[in-house]
């Protein structure tokens, strides 16, 4: 309220003080502008510090302790690298979770991107009602992390679920997909692939950017559809593919909700859906080993950073930017 008016010339509110400052010279002006900038930024800055930065650093500290979440901070004991050592050398379920997660990401992410690109190509035509189809295909990913969707999935892929009823129409006896340790993870992959809407929309946007002249020129040169796709669409789309690949890989590694719901929070049957983040959650909250879970979280962060860095370093061999500049 003090900023709005300055009723008494002898008593200047901050507002009038700033007005004066701005008259004194460009340096002061910029300084006070900067200050105002920070003031306006402050809610976000406080949020960043309070909700992200400080807890992150705290968790880094806790990863070197035996913190169990119930004991006050002041009483936690420094255990050095013990948590990391245990993770790498003495915890079979940790490595099991790593294997599950990597398997999931290696299979689900490429298939999801392929599905997204395939459908985007189909929906890139000017059909009647194509907008409706775009919306319908996008819908599953809007429901993305939702618990409801995972519950629907569990019921669809039960032994007596809708999917097996469908199979039985063709005389096929189904499996208890979600309750079979050999198939539970695959069922999760299908769920992830089915939610290809978000990358699809980005692919669609990318496809719209490809100049039609290129296709015209290619067809004049006698290139068929396949050739056009390989030599025009893919290179022109490569930045978008790259973007989706990085994003979806990170998403894939972080898969949690579906696995949690499908297995009732246990990663079962027989640990077949024990994704990394689920294992981390169980370690922290069920087994009350938050220090160890923090260590897992930091290794996870580093692993994702490394994977992303690898993508970026290989990207220069296959990502083409239309302005000809290699990045």
């Amino acid at each position, binding site marked *: *309220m003090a900023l709005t008016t300055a009723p008494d010339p002898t008593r200047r509110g901050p507002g009038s003080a700033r007005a004066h400052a701005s008259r004194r010279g460009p340096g002061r002006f910029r300084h006070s502008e900067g200050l105002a900038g920070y003031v306006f930024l402050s809610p976000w800055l406080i949020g960043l510090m309070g909700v992200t930065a400080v807890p992150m650093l705290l968790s880094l500290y806790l990863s070197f302790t035996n913190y169990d979440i*119930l*004991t006050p901070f002041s009483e936690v004991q420094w255990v050095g690298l013990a948590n990391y050592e245990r993770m790498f050398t003495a915890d079979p379920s940790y490595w099991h979770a790593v294997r599950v997660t990597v398997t999931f990401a290696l299979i689900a992410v490429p298939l999801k991107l392929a599905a997204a690109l395939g459908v985007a190509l189909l929906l890139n035509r000017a059909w009647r009602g194509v907008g409706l189809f775009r919306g319908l295909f996008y819908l599953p990913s809007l429901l993305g992390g939702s618990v409801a969707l995972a519950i629907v999935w569990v019921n669809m892929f039960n032994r007596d679920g809708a999917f097996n009823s469908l199979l039985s129409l063709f005389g096929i006896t189904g499996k208890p997909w979600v*309750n079979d340790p050999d198939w539970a993870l695959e069922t999760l992959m299908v769920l992830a692939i089915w939610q290809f809407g978000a990358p699809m929309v980005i692919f669609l946007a990318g496809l719209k950017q490809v100049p039609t002249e290129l296709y015209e020129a290619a067809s004049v040169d006698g290139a068929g559809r396949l050739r056009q796709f390989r030599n025009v669409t893919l290179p022109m789309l490569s930045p978008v593919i790259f973007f989706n690949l990085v994003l979806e890989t990170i998403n894939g590694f972080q898969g949690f909700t579906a696995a949690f719901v499908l297995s009732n*929070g246990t990663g079962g*049957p027989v640990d077949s859906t024990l994704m990394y983040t689920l294992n981390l959650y169980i370690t922290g*909250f*069920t*087994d009350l080993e938050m220090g160890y879970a923090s260590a897992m979280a930091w290794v996870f962060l580093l692993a994702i950073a490394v994977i992303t860095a690898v993508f970026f370093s290989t990207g220069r061999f296959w990502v083409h930017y239309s302005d000809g500049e290699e990045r």
Partner: protein
Amino acid sequence: MHPATPPTTDAPDGRAHRTPLPRRRLLRGLLAVTVAAPLMFGAAACGDDGTAADPNAPVKLSIFWWGGDARAKLTEDALALYTKKHPNVTFEKTWQANQGYFDKLATLTAGGNPPDLFQIDDNYLAEYAARNTTLDLTSYQESGKLDTSKFPKSLWQYGVVDGKLAGLAAGENTQGLVYNKTLLTKHNLPEPTTGMSWEEHIAWAEQVTAKTKVPGTQDPSADYKALWVWLRQQGKDLYRGKELGFTAEDVTRWFELWKGARDRKATPTADVIHEGNSSDVTKQLVVTGKSATSWVWANQMPDLKKNTKDELGVIAYPGDPSAQWARASMYWSVFKGSKHKDVAVDVINFLNNDVEAVKLLGTDRGLPSNLDLRRVVSDDTTDPAMKQSIAVEAELTQKFGESPQVPIKGHSKVKSELIKAAENAQYGRATPAEAATQFVEACTSAIA
């Protein structure tokens, strides 16, 4: 803002014409509030321990429990009754479903904001007690402020962790084998009875499967409470002090017992068993119709009944029923750092020993711990399912053995490792011996 407010507020117009005084006063007032508010809250926080000096000082007690709507209603009514009798005490009530309850309780505790009074079960009591989170109620028990004189001794003792009374039983229950009466009657099959041996039970289940096409019994090899009862019948236990009370050989025999049962088709297939391994009442095979029996806690009968139209019966687990005990279905514990310890303990005492409160709460948290009041409540109850489980519990009470020690720190991990190992054997991914060895190894590191 409001027309009636004096013109000291920040009305946008005309302020320039006014003297600076009101504005200055406003600013000063704001400053005063900013400075004083924390002081006031701080003072309030400090003053709380004064309840000992002034019994009528207002107290707001936070209380947290898990359960459904029905439990919430009963608990709220009982707490309202307490407030009626002690007008200075009001409650800040929080409750939620079982799923996620302990995550939240741990998070609240970690955030330095745990409830004064909370519900807890034997899966976590030792975890919390070992970390010095729960108040030792022994001195209150000794002074009579927490009256356990009418409790079965083994029941309150089942709240003792490392010599400290970490929680007081909110009710009593025991292991219950629930079976589908309707199904058995329809096929002219005999009902199972308490005292049948495990072999007899499996033979009976085999017969049920053959006649009804519904698998006779849910394979409980992943169920820690079934393993526990079975171990006690072998003279072993789940825990002995800070160690496991059994060996890999014991578990091998347990897994082999059930492998035999599966091979004889006395149980459903592994994937169906897996569904039933969930702690969710609605997924118990006896109510989903996928098995004729389920291995549960006897006080879950009314909840199970809600999920099926069939008539249900409940008996003890197979073998000698003296292996079972008066188990605290759940406890009330007080946070050690609570500012209202005395009041919180008094509330626990009230919920367990006040006749009106106990009548209100009924058997929702298990049979009332106070034996005199248990009689009152069981005479009062009209719910047939509850009548049944009271009858069974009353019958078993005569046969109950000594309570075991409360599960130790690391128990939650032991439970999940048992499920993993048993399922490994059920799905045929490991032999019973391999699964048992793996289980014992995992447990040893979990409780280390």
